[in-house]
């Protein structure tokens, strides 16, 4: 497995650049803070230097700040998509445009999505036009390792500086897919995990000695470096897990690993062990509408999962793993609306509107430990603000204005251009190729 001490640092090219931050105030809003509180009528949000400085009723607009009158419309934080592969895939089925996984790489945990993020990929603009302003972007694992690599938090601005938080977390697969990747079983996955943690600790203790390890060493230096940040608690470990018993195994692992910041992803059967998850203080990025026994690790699937987790006291936000997550994070608002619908279905547990919106804004940011920076319009958070033409969780509602870091963004895409070209399908005086 261990091939070469190729420098992983080369993969960590920093793409961060200062935002062209702007000041803006939006007034006369049905203002949604995103933290689970109820909308405020007649609200104002003020963004200065790209950050929210005030939001609520009776907030004064500083002199000289550009003001947008929302006309009583919903104004919310942008959607913070809790688990995606946005920006690292153009067309899933065209392999050269798909940077989610690296099946033939000698590295795994070291793989960093940062250099793969392409803010000009068409899904970025399409999701932006639907209200997604931030996304958690995770790599995907490959056969041979449970570790997928280092994910990032990106914005969906129309410039080329998308990566807001590089190397923000490590992602790994457990359960059926992790077990297969590790060699064929869950014990193989756990053995790989424990060994990797042990080697990462060795690396953390003395990076210089790492090259001279014995022949049973499995981790490359670059992978060890990436996992050292995990065992030291510097970055969270996001783990895809579905089955209840698998979740309990991970909770035990957390108890054995002081400082480990564990976040569960998927967690279809989480509701059956909700009290354990809550007691462990482990946040969840859950798939909201999984209700089919799509696999033997999802037999207890129900749309009530998120509602029941929340009732049990679990910090839970919405993400989209194995659900067109390279392209369709925009569906999270529909998913959240469906959780509201559940509150009217006897026997089901849904979310009220305020909690449902928080599940696609503040909660996933908090689950990653980034609630102080992203996901809501509380003071100090990024100025990602959307003015909607209707209830943002309702079908068909769309942004009419959208700001990221206080900078207004375009709402057009390839799709809107194609629509305009073909709204009348017949050719006119010239071929369609001339119509633009």
């Amino acid at each position, binding site marked *: 497995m261990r091939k070469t001490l190729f420098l992983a640092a080369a993969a960590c090219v920093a793409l961060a650049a200062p935002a062209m931050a702007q000041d803006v105030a939006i007034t006369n809003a049905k203002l949604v803070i995103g933290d689970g509180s109820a909308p405020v009528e007649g609200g104002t949000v003020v963004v200065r230097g790209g950050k929210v400085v005030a939001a609520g009723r009776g907030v004064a607009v500083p002199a000289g700040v550009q003001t947008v009158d929302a006309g009583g419309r919903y104004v919310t934080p942008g959607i913070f998509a809790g688990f995606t592969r946005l920006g690292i895939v153009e067309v899933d089925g065209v392999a050269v445009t798909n940077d989610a996984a690296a099946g033939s790489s000698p590295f795994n945990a070291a793989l960093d999505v940062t250099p793969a993020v392409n803010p000009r990929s068409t899904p970025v603009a399409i999701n932006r036009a639907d209200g997604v302003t931030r996304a958690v972007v995770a790599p995907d694992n490959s056969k041979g390792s449970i570790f997928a690599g280092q994910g990032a938090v990106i914005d969906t601005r129309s410039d080329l500086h998308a990566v807001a938080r590089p190397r923000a977390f490590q992602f790994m697969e457990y359960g059926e897919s992790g077990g297969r990747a590790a060699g064929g079983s869950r014990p193989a996955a756990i053995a790989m995990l424990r060994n990797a943690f042990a080697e990462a600790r060795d690396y953390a203790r003395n990076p210089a000695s790492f090259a001279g390890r014995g022949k049973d060493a499995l981790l490359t230096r670059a992978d060890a470096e990436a996992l050292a940040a995990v065992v030291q608690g510097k970055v969270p470990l996001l783990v895809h897990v579905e089955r*209840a018993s698998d979740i309990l195994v991970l909770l035990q692992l957390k108890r054995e690993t002081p400082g480990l910041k564990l976040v569960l992803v998927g967690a279809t059967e989480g509701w059956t062990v909700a009290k354990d998850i809550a007691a462990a203080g482990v946040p969840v990025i859950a798939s909201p509408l999984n209700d*089919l026994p799509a696999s033997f690790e999802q*037999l207890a699937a129900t749309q009530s999962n998120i509602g029941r987790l929340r009732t049990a006291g679990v910090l839970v936000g919405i993400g989209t793993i194995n659900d067109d997550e390279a*392209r369709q994070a925009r569906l999270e608002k529909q998913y959240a609306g469906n959780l*509201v619908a*559940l509150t009217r279905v006897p026997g089901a547990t849904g979310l009220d509107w305020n909690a449902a919106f928080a599940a696609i804004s503040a909660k996933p940011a908090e689950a990653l430990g980034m609630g102080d920076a992203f996901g809501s319009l509380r003071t100090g958070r990024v100025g990602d603000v959307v003015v909607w033409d209707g209830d943002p969780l309702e*079908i*068909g509602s769309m942004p009419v204005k959208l700001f990221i870091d206080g900078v207004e963004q375009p709402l057009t895409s390839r799709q809107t251009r194609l629509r305009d070209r073909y709204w009348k*399908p017949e050719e006119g005086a010239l071929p369609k190729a001339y119509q633009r």
Partner: protein
Amino acid sequence: MIRSFAMAAACVALTACGGTGGKPATASSTPPAQKGPGLGKGYSHDPYPSTYRPYPGVPTLVTNVTILDGEGGRIDRGAVLFRDGKIVALGQNLAADAGVTVIDGQGKYVTPGVIDIHSHLGDYPSPGVDALSDGNEATSPVTADVWAEHSVWPQDPGFGRALVNGGVTTLQILPGSANLFGGRSVLLKNVYARTMQGMKFPGAPYGLKMACGENPKRVYGSRGREPSTRMGNIAVDRQTWARAAEYKRRWEKYERDGGEPPSRDIAMDTLRGVLDGEIRVQNHCYRADEMANVMDMAKEFGYHVSAFHHAVEAYKIADLLKANNTCAAVWADWYGFKMESYDAVPENLAILEKEGACAMIHSDDANGIQRLNQEVAKARASAIRGGFDVSEATAWKWLSINPALALGIADKTGSLKPGKMADVVLWNGNPFSVYTRPEMVWVDGALLYDAKDPKRRPVSDFELGQPGEGDVK
């Protein structure tokens, strides 16, 4: 205003979808033998017959509801009466006879049951393990001999979810799209049974699944065999249709003149059925240019494409589809997962409807089938945003009468017309809202889902005794 607009639009679509039994007006084929010694001595055309029987229902009057009749009509503060499995009447002033169960639907909607023309429930069921993966006979590009019904596992938990969350009462199960000729489809009532035959829609025509584009050329090209290109796709298609025409001639001669029966070829039985207008072609195809090629090929060999499925570029040739009486069954907003889906737009249904082509929603997905009403709501919102005002009543055609027409069952279901099957959904609000779910679902007048009654909720064998138990926990 709403109503008159909707009804006019309905007439356009009914014409566009064509009630011709899938047979082209210009078919060059010989009519099936009407007499002669071979007639009826060939082979059974229905060897796995439906054993579906409607479950008992009670005469029911749902009052005080907004009714979308599925053909473009709307009645506000209306009522619908059904009895003995059939729709009896709908209107604003229906009185309840003695013995009729009355349901007050204040603030709610009644629609025909949703019809999904493109599903793989049963042949790609949950759980999605290899042992149950039976949708693609991907061993040859031409497998017209296989029938999806022989793969359908009637215990798929997905049927129940489609009923209770989606209000789906009828669905077409198709083979996958690995092959050019994927095999026969089967139409099911969404009522659990011990056997496939017990779910089979009685008297429905068969479909033939065909596929163009990336899938066949990828699957077989990667094995170093034809087809490996789009031109290879069409070449194998044409060669196969030429064989089918010959097979049809031999059987017709035998049925007319008698003598030694021709050799049976199970695949050719199906293709002959297509050429005779007995079996409808349901054609997986994404790109506009490829759909045009297929429609020409259909004319060349004398058959008709009932509907293109997925059809993400249908909007580019809405006029051509209309001229060919061919429908498009599409998603609301899927895009970009493969090259041939790259040009998808959310206005696909809107543009098709605006141009008078026959259009409908489809799922192709065990999750999407639970929310087809929401998919239609998205497409309608895109139409309105573009300046084309599609009414709720018109948009519901995309879920009911249009798929019924493309499937050849519009005389039996697909709208709330007296005499048709009482496949009815009572929604707990406006079904174009994300906050709405089915409250009660009837199939042939039998109440098979009631949100307020845990006993009126199906649990398949697979889920019985499992921690999920059909999401009824």
